[in-house]
């Protein structure tokens, strides 16, 4: 029984990281209509910045500040990219949007390599110093709980921003119908910038949260990107709720897959995605999409 509990917790932990990455991706997608292939790089960059900061501040209480700072820097970068590069191609064909973000992904990951080097950056102390707790006779790291809770809080924040504030209303309006929003006097350009800021912050914070328990290293961008694609396709493109349920599903499938069907653990996520698309092409919580 207690082993069962551990696997559920492991699943939750994995899901919470995945949720943060994919909610940013789905937000940008639903509002600005851009499949941001550079999203994984923002996540990787968040990890590198946080790792560097934590490493230099490890013996001071300010180490905790590394998380918001990393998220903020990545957020600014996202804003910059939107303002100066992506802005030019909103009205253009999908192919150019994909080509552009693909190019951005190449550039960002190479810049990460040039700035931070090819060696992974590890921060061990923070993860170990938060200690372990005893659940029904087996150890479980406190840090994982912190990540789960932080992710839930951020999820709630996103929900409040989207559904309880004026800004959220504007964002939702843009996602629903851009031309109509413009017609009633919304500055959609600013809304898009805001969305990119939020999406990039989410990517940055998830990268930062991963660092203490794993490492900042090259190549984590592609995996994160592909996994969050699976999540948003399952949950329904453009739906935060879908991203939540989707990442929970993938997290649990993964942690139980390791125990019960290790041979196809990796492929099972894809199979779930294909089944969902066959039964319900727009995903679990996706809106009906329009042709064109």
């Amino acid at each position, binding site marked *: 029984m207690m082993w069962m509990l551990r696997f559920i917790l492991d699943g939750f932990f994995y899901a919470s990281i995945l949720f943060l990455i994919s909610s940013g991706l789905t937000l940008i*997608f639903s509002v600005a*209509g851009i*499949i941001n292939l550079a999203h994984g790089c923002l996540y990787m960059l968040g990890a590198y910045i946080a790792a560097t900061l934590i490493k230099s501040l490890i013996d001071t209480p300010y180490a905790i500040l590394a998380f918001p700072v990393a998220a903020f820097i990545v957020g600014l970068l996202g804003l910059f990219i939107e303002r100066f*590069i992506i802005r*030019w*191609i909103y009205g*253009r064909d*999908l*192919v*150019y*949007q*994909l*080509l*552009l973000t*693909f*190019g*951005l*992904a*190449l*550039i*960002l*990951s*190479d*810049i990460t390599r*040039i700035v931070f080097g090819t060696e992974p950056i590890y921060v061990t102390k923070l993860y170990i110093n938060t200690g372990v707790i005893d659940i029904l006779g087996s150890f479980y790291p406190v840090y994982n709980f912190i990540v789960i809770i932080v992710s839930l809080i951020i999820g709630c924040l996103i929900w409040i921003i989207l559904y309880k504030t004026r800004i959220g209303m504007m964002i939702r309006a843009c996602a629903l119908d851009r031309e109509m929003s413009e017609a009633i006097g919304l500055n959609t350009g600013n809304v898009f910038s805001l969305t990119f800021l939020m999406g990039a912050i989410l990517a940055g914070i998830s990268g930062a949260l991963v660092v203490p328990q794993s490492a900042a290293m090259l190549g984590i961008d*592609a995996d994160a990107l*592909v996994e969050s*694609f*699976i999540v948003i*396709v399952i949950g329904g*493109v453009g739906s935060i709720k879908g991203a939540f349920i989707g990442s929970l599903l993938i997290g649990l499938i993964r942690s139980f897959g390791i125990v019960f069907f290790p*041979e*196809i653990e*990796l*492929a099972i996520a*894809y*199979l779930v*995605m*294909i089944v969902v*698309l*066959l039964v319900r*092409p*727009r995903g679990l919580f996706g809106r009906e*999409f329009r*042709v*064109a």
Partner: protein
Amino acid sequence: MGFQNTLYCKVLVLTCILLLLSIPLAGSSYLNFLACMALVYSIWALGYNLLLGYTGLLSFGHGAYFGLGAYTVAILTTRYSIQSLPVVLGTAILVSTFFGTIIGYLCARHVAKYFALLTLAFSQLFYALTFKLYKWTGGSDGIGVKPLKLLGLEFSGIGDTVSYYYLVLLFFLLSLYTSWRIVNSPFGKALQAIRDNPLKAESIGIPVKRYKWYAFIVSTVYSGLAGALYAPLFGHVVPDLFHFSFSGEVLFATLLGGHRIFIGPVIGAIVFTIARSYITAVTIYWPLVLGLLLVIVALFFPHGVIGTLYTTLKGRFRRL
């Protein structure tokens, strides 16, 4: 005017073919190798553009069918020692077309971004499987490819590249011809109608979903052929072929040349191959340079480099 146009056209095509035929005369095995690579990419891009340029469907997972073709050749020649050229190439095309038919059926119901995401996910599924089924595929170490044999001749990119170059050239010309015929057939025109306005196409009686599916299948035939020719050229295949970033290369090559021009993907593929080969040789910052190139093409060349040059030149001539 029309007569002159076709005459010019014929002369141009003939010159190009002669030029292609004479490449091995330079006697550089590296040049032959590079030319083979460019032509393989061209075949792939030609098929890909039937989907992208003529049907308006953006696939981000065509590496899957390329990879399936390549892996079929590798497994047949290495694991089963079947090296007969027609058998191997035929099987490779069949395998990739088979999967293309199934996946195309599932994907053709979706539009635009969802289509792109879905094709991407499918190619990643193959990527995961090639990694996982390492006993069969060699996993990340990949699997070697033996030369193809026909009439006592050996074809591979490792030894005598000249014969292999002519083999690739033959298939390239065949692909060029067939895709030209497809594009100008009623089926091709229907695809363009779907691209320009799916609703209108549906209303004039074109079975949109079915035709999209057909276009997908045809493009996987080309991808499979290109993959099958790629494998003996390098003599080794790895799961990277299924990774979405590899699929991004064909997208880039196609857009570089211009996806609204028939010959665009071919020119794009040739330019891309040569450019990448030089960039990677010159600098270790090649991902950065390549990324910058991509961004520049996406931002400033809305019709591809060749397409944009063509339209600006045409505009200038008209003014004269």
